[in-house]
């Protein structure tokens, strides 16, 4: 899906706080599903901050060379989707995690008005309950951009679903440790972990 002039106009109006409810929904939906539009919003936000002499968000630090060095230094161990954490660490320490400047520059959450509910489609997820993708997100799994000479899109979608399922099994114990700290019943986070003893087996029944 490509960014249209209408999207850009809506984004500009959104930045100016001039969007009406329905158009706001549509624009937020478009932003949710269009990476280019999200990136443009972030750029506009930075420009807006600069023009208003506000604090400019910390710029991303170009560590491209470090990333590539990390990638090139490491052997390609396997095509298996499960890798060693050591390799992951060597690469990911050099990525940039940016704040989501998706909304206008107001600083107070509580002082802002609320608008009405935002709808969205129900997303079928294989092997699980449906969820609704907020902001108009359409479906998962979905292929965003297949690599050159890659498999068919449906194969890609299936691969990423397998990856998601694998990561759920493998990473949820670690996530549980973090989630427990904020949950009103901390043990629930551990019970969710699928690899714990017989509970997991019973859930497969």
């Amino acid at each position, binding site marked *: 899906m490509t960014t249209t002039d209408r999207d850009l106009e809506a984004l500009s109006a959104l930045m100016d706080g001039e969007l009406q409810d329905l158009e706001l929904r549509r624009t937020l939906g478009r932003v*949710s599903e269009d990476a280019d539009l999200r990136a443009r919003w972030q750029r506009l936000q930075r420009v807006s901050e600069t023009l208003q002499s506000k604090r400019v968000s*910390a710029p*991303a*630090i170009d*560590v*491209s060379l470090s990333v590539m060095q990390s*990638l090139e230094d490491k052997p390609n161990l*396997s*095509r*298996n989707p499960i*890798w060693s954490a050591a*390799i*992951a660490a060597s690469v*990911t*320490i050099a*990525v940039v*995690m940016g*704040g*989501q400047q998706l*909304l206008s520059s107001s*600083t*107070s959450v*509580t002082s*802002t008005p*609320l*608008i009405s509910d*935002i709808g969205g489609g*129900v997303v079928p*997820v294989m*092997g699980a309950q*449906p*969820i*609704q*993708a*907020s902001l108009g*997100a359409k479906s*998962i799994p979905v292929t965003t*951009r*297949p*690599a050159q000479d*890659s498999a068919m899109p449906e194969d*890609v*979608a299936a691969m*990423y679903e397998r*990856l*998601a399922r694998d*990561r*759920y099994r493998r*990473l*949820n114990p670690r*996530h549980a440790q*973090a*989630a*427990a700290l*904020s949950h*009103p*019943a*901390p*043990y629930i986070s551990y019970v969710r972990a699928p690899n714990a*003893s017989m509970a997991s087996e019973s859930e497969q029944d």
Partner: protein
Amino acid sequence: MRRWLASQNKTNPLVLYRPNLLALLAVLIVPGSGFAQSPSQTCDLDNPAKQLLNKMLQAPYALAFEGTVLYERAQGRQFLTVTWPHASGTGVLRRMNAEADPTAEPWPAPIDSPRRICDVIQVYIPTLDSGPVVAGRQTQRLTLRPRDTLRLAHRIDVDAETGMALAMATAGPEGQMLERYEYAAIDYAETAPDSGTLSPAPAAYLPGRSVVPGYFLVSQDADNAVFVVSDGLATASIFVEPLPAGAPLGEGAIIEGATLTYTRGTAAARTAESDARSADRGLLISVLGEVPLVTARLLADAVRPPAGSR
């Protein structure tokens, strides 16, 4: 029920760094960071719902208990016994479903901070109603409605006397129940836990930079490429690793109970010096959390290849 907040906290980029760059980057990060409040800062709890929510969040430090719990989600149900705190200094959980002698599994003390309630009520609207009797205890029903579409809704039956969360259901964006738990029985001890005996000690609550509106970075493990964000109630963990060589770019997700797992393969940086093999090596971003899909996607967006990427 769900509402979108017209504007949110302004957020700032965050740089994940090599350990040996820590000193340098700390200078760049801290001055512009989003540490919006001090850990001790409090907020106005101006209605009974907020006050009960605060009491509920503080309950683990005021109550010692043993109980039996039913946990349910679409994939099945489990029966648990829980003890807080155990002599070991942690909580202890036993899964009673299938084992004659279930293993004792420890669980830690939750965070204890006056700041937390302030973060929670910034992104959820608490309302109060009369609740059912749960495990023989009269409850008040606390409903936490998200102010935006970036988090899930919760319905919590809170012990009217103690503030203990005796039952809780988490709903998806469409209102469908994703998971729930409920105490079948609970016995409170006469004395409160001795916080000095808890081991490990309660984790500090020092929310850092806002990554997605309402979600703050609460921990990062750069060595293992794990980053955790929270809005004070919901938590999401972000894991980053190399994309398999030759793997196409794409995304996928599954949901188990309230936990969404989202994976995305994204392109990595490409430089003039890189060869064809390395240029194909992207990043695989996995987001696990009790969050809607849109939040997971935004969190994955927040992990970006450095400048110069494709």
